[in-house]
């Protein structure tokens, strides 16, 4: 791997982890609203799908292991596919003039997969109670999965919109960011 790639992976993972850390808890599922998605979408828009998938998955899971360990396995999968899909859509339409539309589609598709992954995890995987948690029924099953659904939608939409605005602003102020792609 080139030195530039190593630096990108290292710094972007730290960035995702830091932004995942600054959040606030959501009841009733013990999840929390965070800004990690902003970093994942931003990396997908400006650098690439692989970087968004790996940095997103590793960075967010690092923090989940400390703050919400029950969600760590779901986070690893959800953030990886979210970053990969968003990045892949941006790359597929890289020459398109309608940049905002492409990015909106990218975050909508990536975010939908993330929401679906968490929903299925809370509904189908958590109730299996693989780790014998005595309080499992209070944050797993169809009830809590439906309860957290709107929060996840708000998180994906808010972070996607922020990421689009942020990318536009930073690309204007910092044009060399284009060199990081590829």
């Amino acid at each position, binding site marked *: 791997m080139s030195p530039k790639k190593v630096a990108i992976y290292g710094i972007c993972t*730290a960035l995702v982890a830091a932004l995942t850390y600054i959040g606030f808890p959501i009841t009733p599922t013990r999840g929390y609203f965070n800004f990690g998605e902003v970093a994942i979408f931003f990396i997908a828009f400006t650098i690439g799908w692989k970087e968004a998938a790996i940095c997103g998955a590793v960075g967010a899971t690092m923090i989940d292991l400390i703050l919400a360990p029950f969600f760590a396995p779901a986070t690893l999968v959800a953030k990886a596919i979210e970053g990969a899909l968003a990045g892949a859509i941006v790359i597929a339409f890289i020459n398109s003039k309608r940049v905002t539309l492409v990015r909106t589609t990218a975050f909508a598709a990536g975010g939908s997969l993330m929401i679906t992954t968490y929903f299925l995890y809370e509904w189908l995987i958590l109730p299996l109670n693989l780790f014998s*948690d005595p309080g499992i029924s209070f944050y797993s099953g169809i009830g809590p999965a439906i309860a957290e659904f709107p929060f996840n939608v708000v998180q994906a939409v808010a972070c996607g919109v922020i990421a689009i605005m942020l990318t536009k602003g930073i690309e204007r102020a910092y044009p060399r960011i284009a060199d990081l792609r590829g």
Partner: protein
Amino acid sequence: MARTALVDIFVPKQSPLHRVDPRIKIISAILLTVLCFFLSNLLVLIALLLFLQALIWSTGVNLRTYSSSFWLVARFSIILMIVWPFFDHLGEPVLLDLWIYKPTVPALLRALTVAIRIFAIASGWLMLLLTTKHGQLVRGFVKLGCPYDFGISLSIALRYLPNFLGTIDQIKEAQASRGLDTSKGDLVKRARNMIPVLIPTFAIAFRAIEGLSEALLSRGYGANPVRTYYRDIKMRASDFTILVSLVFIASFVVMMKFLGGASF
């Protein structure tokens, strides 16, 4: 800045735990995490937590050094315990009956179990970070079979995470002095108020990427595909003993739980 203490907490000491091979410490942290998920008895989890605290204390690390890290986890656990009775009303006796807020003794014990589990997992990883240099940590991961690129990237991530948390705090304070409040309001308002904090954070991150890639290039990173070490890590007899004991204890607990029906 309490947040910067989240991971950048290595304390150079000469304790036995500092001398343990980093591979063993990484495996221990992973095993401990798995074990904590399997354990559901409050008393067993408290005993495990006390044992881990005693181990940390035995390294001679100043309590102040890691208390801020624990405070971060404690804050989350306290919030968890406060909100838990909103959704868990099962059991008796009921301590309070305020409409949907009904804390019962069994529910509070369930919340406490989860909080102690989070503390125990955090203690395991904290022990690794308190007693292992970043360089050793990377070498440990590489020796465990991870590619060197992965090891160095992870090391960079761990090195920069406290920097970014500190930077975010500084930017927040700077924006607060201009009248921006990121701690109040509903979800959307709080998210919107974070934009002026996020823009400089991203700009700083990308400047860091440029600087770091130049620094790595100037040190000849990747010039030689086979990496050599001035000081390599070697497993000692004591390391093997710790590894065997850990694997034995973890397997025993898992087997007793699933085959013997033990209630821990």
